[in-house]
């Protein structure tokens, strides 16, 4: 199942007519416990317009008279609806009830994937395809109008903001990143200069960071074959990885998990070809 095909479980905490409202503190504890487990919760009071549940399983929770949950169904037959009485249950117990329903309905499980992926600011993006040719993990693609898109978000390496570093327009955001403008904060002129400088640095180092990695690795291999000094080769690789990690703020574990230099070369060529095709060159 992919992110796009899994159906989530939506939870409604119903406190309108026919249900006894929860005391504020219990309401808070319940909603918080559900959010911490990854669920979306609507607090419905009978007034206001919460977002409707679409393409999802819907679980309605409430304190109903006599502990009897009313019978109801979706008139359109599009939403699988369940109603549960939560009278006498505390927040952790309610969270257990919800988790059980999630399991029974085969709804999306939360928390296995940490949502870390690039978000493109199309006010800034110039469709230059640098990100597409840079990313080795197939996160980017193009739509039918050859417009760059983040298409395979779950291929992205958690905590790695490297592609945002190669974007000359600071158009790539990672909303969970620690600092601006990558986290979505406004882009300043200083940021733009800094971003450009980073690209220049990587160019100085040999075109792009992957060719740096390749050439360093090749040099290390050659030394290794001459000197038969495994420690030296390892040291060289570690030095190279440390430099890359520092330049791009790339987590060491991402760099350590990179494939072999040959595979990097193959993927980089493939990505560059896709970018070239998208640009129509």
């Amino acid at each position, binding site marked *: 199942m992919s992110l796009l095909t899994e159906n989530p479980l939506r939870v409604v905490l119903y406190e309108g007519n026919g249900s006894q409202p929860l005391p*504020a503190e219990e309401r808070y504890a319940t909603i918080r416990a559900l959010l911490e487990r990854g669920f979306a919760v609507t*607090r419905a009071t009978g007034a206001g317009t919460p977002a409707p549940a679409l393409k999802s399983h819907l679980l309605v929770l409430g304190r109903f008279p006599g502990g009897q949950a009313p019978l109801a169904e979706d008139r359109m037959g599009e939403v699988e609806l369940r109603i549960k009485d939560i009278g006498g249950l505390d927040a952790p117990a309610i969270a257990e009830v919800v988790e059980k329903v999630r399991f029974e309905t085969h709804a999306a499980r*939360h928390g296995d994937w940490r949502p870390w992926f690039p978000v493109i600011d199309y006010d800034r993006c110039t469709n230059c395809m640098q990100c597409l040719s840079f990313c080795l993990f197939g996160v980017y693609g193009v739509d039918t109008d050859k417009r760059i898109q*983040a298409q395979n978000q779950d291929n992205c390496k958690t905590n790695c903001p490297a592609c945002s570093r190669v974007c000359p327009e600071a158009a790539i955001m990672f909303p969970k990143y620690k600092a601006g403008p990558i986290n979505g*904060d406004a882009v300043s002129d200083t940021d733009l200069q800094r971003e450009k400088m980073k690209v220049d640095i990587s160019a100085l180092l040999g075109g792009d960071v992957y060719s740096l990695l390749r050439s360093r690795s090749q040099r290390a291999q050659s030394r290794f074959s001459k000197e038969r000094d495994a420690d030296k080769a390892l040291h060289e690789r570690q030095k190279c990885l440390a430099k890359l990690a520092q330049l791009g703020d790339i987590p060491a574990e991402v760099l350590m998990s990179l494939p072999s230099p040959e595979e990097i070369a193959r993927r980089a060529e493939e990505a560059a070809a896709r970018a070239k095709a998208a640009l129509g060159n």
Partner: protein
Amino acid sequence: MSQPRILFCNCTYAQVIPADVKAEVLRKLCESGVAFDAVADLCELSARHDPSLKALADGAPAKIAACFPRAVKWLFASAGAALSPVATEVLNMRAQSAEEVADALLHRELKPNLPRAKATCSDAPVAQTVERAALTASP
């Protein structure tokens, strides 16, 4: 104007929003008695192209407590749910205090603040041209 819809993002899978801020905002929402939607993680919903985002972005006034407005705007857009620039106010729990965010969420008045385009000084060509021309003309 009708009461804007309220969406609260708990940013469950990261520690970028101060824990005390999001806890306090949620507490105040729960104490207020208003109807609202709370999601564990807006990024996850965006990646899933969750249809509830589209329902929230259907043009009705909305107040969203999450992170930077630029990030929120494009998280919705990338899920095919463009937010209305005239009917959306984003409260930034990474930068604003809990009190500020909660007050704005519960206030009837809506102050739209989605960025409409590039926002750097260099994107103001007239001002730049004048400045450069002045520099060039000076002896």
